[in-house]
């Protein structure tokens, strides 16, 4: 148990280190001086660079750009460890950290809501659909959700956006609040907030439901073939007991692992959905940074995504033994 945890944490550290190093290499591997190059590119696009000189000076100092590579690498690691991701070029003097801090709660809320809805609905749908006496309507629903989930989130987002904000304009086209509204703790604010979240959450959840339903159904069909289910049935147990305690309880375990594995894909998809709805999360920050070549924000967001996905997977992996008695009890019993 302890061994497994340590190995898992080591893999986490390795992942983060690889990500950070790749980041470092990519920046240095670009043929031009990163800072000058970026400022130059921005200037050529006609964007004003407030405090350009200060930024250059700051970077030369903190990242020791005049020193040889190993020193640069060391300085870079030290800055990162102290949480310093640099300045935003577009919003100077805001730091990348500030920009991220504003965006993270939005992204996290969006992700958690969508994933929880989809995980519960999808698994329930898949489990029920694999059970012997599932009604035809349910099976049709599963099939529908499965075909929908074959389409990436961002395309679903475009389609939903057109359907519910343009063709049939019942929902806002983007943002998180109506522009100019006062954000107080009133019911109207809450409704406004929810109305803005429906489409982004919906396009992610809709894309995920079929995915979970499909894989749950796959796992359930193997579970249904298991000896313990046959034995339970011969024992004359009720369908409900068999379904919940013998079927779903066993099938949900591999689903949780799958949740961890697909986290990376999930977040990649969310980035685009946020950008399409102009939702003020990390994805939109990234999208805007790409448009303005705000290089350090791009770098910061990418690092942040990698670290948080790794962290999420680490947590799932460490929590998993708690729900699978074969791992914990197995170790204790020996």
């Amino acid at each position, binding site marked *: 148990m302890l061994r497994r945890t340590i190995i898992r944490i080591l*893999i*986490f550290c*390795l*992942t983060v280190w*690889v*990500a950070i190093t*790749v*980041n470092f290499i*990519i*920046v240095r591997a*670009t043929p031009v001086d990163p800072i000058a190059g970026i400022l130059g590119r921005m200037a050529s696009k006609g964007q004003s660079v407030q405090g350009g000189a200060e930024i250059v000076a700051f970077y030369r100092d903190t990242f020791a750009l005049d020193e040889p590579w190993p020193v640069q690498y060391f300085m870079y690691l030290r800055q990162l460890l102290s949480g310093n991701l640099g300045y935003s070029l577009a919003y100077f003097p805001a730091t990348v950290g500030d920009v991220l801090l504003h965006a993270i709660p939005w992204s996290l809320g969006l992700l958690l809501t969508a994933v929880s809805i989809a995980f519960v609905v999808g698994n329930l749908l898949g489990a029920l*659909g*694999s059970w*012997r006496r*599932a009604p035809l309507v349910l*099976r049709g629903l*599963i*099939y529908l959700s499965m*075909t929908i989930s*074959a*389409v*990436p989130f*961002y*395309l679903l987002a*475009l*389609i939903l*956006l*057109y359907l519910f904000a*343009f063709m049939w304009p019942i929902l806002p*086209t983007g943002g998180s609040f109506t522009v100019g509204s006062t954000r107080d703790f009133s019911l109207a604010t809450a409704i406004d907030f929810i109305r803005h979240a429906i489409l982004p959450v919906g396009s992610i959840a809709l894309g995920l439901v079929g995915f979970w339903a499909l894989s749950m*159904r*796959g796992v359930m*069909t*193997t579970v*249904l073939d298991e000896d313990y289910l046959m034995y339970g049935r011969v024992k004359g147990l009720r369908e409900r007991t068999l379904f919940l305690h013998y079927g779903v309880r066993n099938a949900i375990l591999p689903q949780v692992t799958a949740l961890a*594995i697909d*986290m*990376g*894909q999930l*977040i*990649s*998809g969310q*980035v*685009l959905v946020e*950008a*399409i709805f102009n939702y003020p999360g990390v994805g939109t920050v*990234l*999208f805007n940074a*790409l*448009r303005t*070549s705000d290089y350090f924000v*791009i*770098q910061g*967001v*990418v690092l942040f*995504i*990698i670290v948080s*996905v*790794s962290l999420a*997977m680490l947590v799932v992996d460490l929590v998993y033994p708690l729900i699978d008695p074969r791992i914990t009890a197995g170790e204790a019993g020996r």
Partner: protein
Amino acid sequence: MRRRPATVPLIIGATFLGGVLLTVVAGHVLVSPDSTAMFSAVPNLPPDAAHPLGTQSQGRDMLAVMAAAIPATLFVSLLGGGVAVIIGTILGMTAGYFGGVVDGVIRTAVDVALTIPTLAVLILIGASFPVVSLSAMGFIIALTAWMGPARVVRAQVLTLREREFVRIAKLSGLGGFRIIALELLPNLIPFLSAIFVNAVVTATAATIGLEVLGLGPRQTITLGNTIFEALYYTAMWRGMWWWWAPPVIVLVCLFQGLFFIGKALDSIANPRALGATT
């Protein structure tokens, strides 16, 4: 008793993909390929007889754009998916068959790569080195899709390796690589075809994703670039549905087609995973 459960999804999948290809044919028949050029037509025209899918703001004919974009996108997807499967298969087989340290290294690499959201890395690469050619895009995209094949192939090889027929082949004097090629590979063919389709799906999603963010090959017309431009020039807000809808619909059909074919191949490769309802 033995029904081929794969037939129906295979037909549905082929129909969707057929529809996508038909668009290309229609484009070549109905409009000149030169109509993809800027201002070869009046901009912002809704669909009519001369421009069956209308024109966009830079005066390109949308049907001609689609006829050019679909092959370009398919090229990137197939190249990316194919390279990913080759890399994944080689790594998976090596890890699974030889085990030990080799396996440990490859498995850790796969685990680490799976943890890293690939789109994020692609964004970083795309932002640092502007991608110029479709082939370059294909190879970069392959970096996002090799882990799945490597995992699946490794797992398959691990179970096959313990099968007694491998021992018998060893007793007949076959060496490691010949055992992989002669005894293991033939049994993996159905798996590999299913894996390939899945890799193409992953590759397509990643390509389009990058392009929609504006990080695609700049000078080329692709489905993703078309969507990016439509969004950039606020086509939806201007009511120009003929600009953004065709690439979206073609992509939806492409993904549906690949989904159904992948499902059919999956059920051939792994009959146990078949749902009771199919």
